[in-house]
């Protein structure tokens, strides 16, 4: 048995050696032949270079001699000028270069060369850009009847004046800041808001990145897109109500690219706030009163020109303790949110032809959200409070077709159940057309018809929006905006 074992291991070792040897057996002969070829090539090139060098040296020697003679001649025999100090051609003689002129020129060249070596303080500046977004709107109904954030009638709303700056912090992280100035649509008051101020690691192992600070947490598809980058004028109703608009969160987020050949990305994070509504604002917050969120996303190349992206998202705050109690639409109870739970699914199908996608493309984007918030319901007429869970869902679906570099158009359909009273429902229908005057200058015209039912307390509204967006300064093609 022992002998057989030894034989077995010996065979294995020999096979390994043979495998390695087989790679080497032919190598000496190959190497010799290649060496010989290399040597021949090298000698040939050496000879060619030698001949070329000798020729160039001879040419340069001749040039130097000619220049020396010219300089010597100019120094000892300046050309005689006719009376009046000009040449026979009637202009001052400019053909001769004196040694002094050469020195002045040489000094200037040295100064320029030295100046180029200096580091300017401005080189430490981050990449800075500005985004401006103005919305002209005409609403058929007054506020708050129209159910939007816009006042009734005609309005000009400076929704964004956004300053963004980004730079590397060090070899391990990059940072960015987005500060937005906007006017409140209802009151007209302007305010400055830090939308994002975060850092992100750039060299963690294991395909991980960490983001920390205040940022837009990854939930769904459009929650973490800035207003001016949306494919239509306004954020979908379901995102406005269930998320609170943009998914702004002060917290931390980890993102993991799975180490497989197929693209799968998993993100998980937490924040004391998610969206525009602060949660659990009180004297003491436990870890049980923090928002936890995440998204699992993947991608498929259906064909060279067709792409499919999809994802599943979650957002939960086990103890949201929302002190902003709201009177439920039925007017009977006051609801105080005690637990927040939102689940979402997103899907985007795109036609992006390889040859001319700057002139032609089609995008169909969808998102469905389900809200399952828990409330403490307090009867306004008196009586004990009780826990009440309201399940509601909402969705949006849009189709955008681009038929030239500058023009695209589409349609957005929306449906929303109120997350506190799912009998209150709203439909939205929005055709839109976009004129990209250039990469940094864009006009969009959109009509929106909103059809709420009676339970919402709103009335149908018709609105026209003209959105003008412009960018100055640095502008990068970010991953999220692809």
């Amino acid at each position, binding site marked *: *048995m022992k002998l*057989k074992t030894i034989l*077995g*291991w010996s*065979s*294995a*070792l020999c*096979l*390994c050696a043979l*495998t*390695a040897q087989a*790679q080497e057996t032919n190598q000496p002969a190959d*190497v010799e032949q*290649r060496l010989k*070829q*290399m040597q021949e*090539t090298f000698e040939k090139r050496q000879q060619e270079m030698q001949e070329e060098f000798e020729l160039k040296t001879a040419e340069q020697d001749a040039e130097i001699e000619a220049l020396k003679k010219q300089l010597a001649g100019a120094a000892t025999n300046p050309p005689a000028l006719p009376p009046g100090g000009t040449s026979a051609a009637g202009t001052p003689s400019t053909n001769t270069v004196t040694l002094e002129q050469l020195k002045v020129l040489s000094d200037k060249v040295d100064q320029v060369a030295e100046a180029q070596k200096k580091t300017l303080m401005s080189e430490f500046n981050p990449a800075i850009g500005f985004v401006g977004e103005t919305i002209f709107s005409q609403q058929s109904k007054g506020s708050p009847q129209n159910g939007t954030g816009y006042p009734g009638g005609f309005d000009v709303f400076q929704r964004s004046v956004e300053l963004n700056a980004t730079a590397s912090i060090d070899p391990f992280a990059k940072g960015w800041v987005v500060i937005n100035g906007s006017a409140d649509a209802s009151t007209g008051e302007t305010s400055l808001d830090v939308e994002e101020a975060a850092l992100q690691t*750039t*060299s*963690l192992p294991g*395909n*991980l*990145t960490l983001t920390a600070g205040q940022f837009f947490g990854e939930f769904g598809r459009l929650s973490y897109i800035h207003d001016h980058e949306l494919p239509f004028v306004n954020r979908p109703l379901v995102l406005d109500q269930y998320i609170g608009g943009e998914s702004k969160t002060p917290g931390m987020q980890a993102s993991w*690219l799975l*180490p*497989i*050949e*197929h*693209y799968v*990305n998993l993100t998980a994070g937490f924040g004391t706030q998610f969206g525009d509504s602060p949660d659990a604002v009180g004297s003491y917050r436990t870890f049980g009163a923090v928002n936890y969120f995440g998204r699992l996303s993947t*991608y*498929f*190349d259906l064909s*060279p020109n067709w*792409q499919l*992206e999809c994802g599943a998202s979650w957002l939960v705050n086990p103890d949201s303790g929302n002190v902003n109690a709201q009177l439920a639409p039925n007017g009977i109870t006051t609801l105080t949110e005690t637990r927040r739970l939102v689940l979402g699914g997103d899907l985007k199908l795109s036609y*992006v032809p*390889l*040859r*001319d*996608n*700057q*002139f032609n493309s089609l995008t169909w984007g969808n998102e469905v959200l389900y809200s399952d918030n828990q409330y403490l319901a307090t009867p306004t007429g008196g009586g004990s409070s009780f826990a009440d869970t309201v399940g509601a869902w909402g969705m949006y679906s849009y189709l955008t077709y681009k038929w*030239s*570099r*500058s023009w695209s158009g589409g349609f957005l359909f929306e449906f929303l159940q109120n997350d506190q009273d799912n009998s209150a429902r709203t439909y939205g229908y929005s055709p839109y057309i976009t004129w990209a005057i*250039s*990469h*940094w200058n864009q006009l969009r015209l959109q009509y929106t018809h909103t059809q709420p039912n009676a339970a919402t307390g709103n009335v149908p509204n018709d609105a026209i929006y003209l959105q003008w967006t412009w960018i*100055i300064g640095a502008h*990068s*093609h*970010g*991953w999220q905006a*692809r």
Partner: protein
Amino acid sequence: MKLKLFCLTFLALSLGAIQTQAAKIRVVTTLTDLADFTREIGGDHVNVFCLATGIEDTHGVPMKPSFVPLLNRADLVVLVGFDCEHAFLPALLEASRNPRIQIGKAGYVDCSQGITPVEVPKSTDHSEGDVHPYGNPHYMLDPVLAKTALQNICNALVATAPQFEADFTHNRDVYLARLDAKITEWQKEAAPLKGVKFVSYHEHWPYFAKRFGMDYIGTIELKPGIDPTPRHIEELIQEMKAEHVPIVAREPQFPEKVPALIAQQTGATLVKLPIMPGGVPHTDTYIEMMDYIIHTLVAAVQK
């Protein structure tokens, strides 16, 4: 016992196979000309994937998430440089989570190293369109300058796998000999192009024009990345008539309508010219692409 012996034998053979496979350098190139060069130099020691297929606009290669795992595993990313790939590469590199191939790292192979760019803008103000701040990046259409890119790729491969230096330099020399012979042939064949004026849709051709003595009048685009206005088209037509410009070059990724209109109005010949291998059929390699470009232009001039 027999099973044990079989397993040991299988294990030994597998180890040998894995060793051979693991030696291959994983290279991702942005454009197809760089992929061609990398395959020529790298030979059996490289696995090359190209983000573009050849038919795309160099500024419009889609940012597909399927590129991310490829970049995540890459040993080298090879790019043209001069900000040519700004529309897709920076975001892809960030999403790749691969520290080896980030800017400034050994795996980031900028082929523009050693090339002096032309048309470096005095201002990067957006009134001049989507300018390239470091100069015109389309130097690969000059086969002499393309040799610099070839050398940069060779240097990177040698630095990554010095044990294969002899193979890389041999392959480079063999390919260079072929390319030099073709350059001489192209110079002769392109003699009728000297002094010939032409326009193109986008500013792809200054390096090519300089190399082969052509006179590059201008572009159909108003400014880089900005579609032509009716006034610009009219002014270009008038200029072409005044200058007797005989050729309108359209790159395949741009629509044909306006170039065809200009050609028809001026009596010029409309030609379709690829800007990287694969842009038109039967141009799968760099040499085939340059052959096609020279032949097409000479035929248009001699028409």
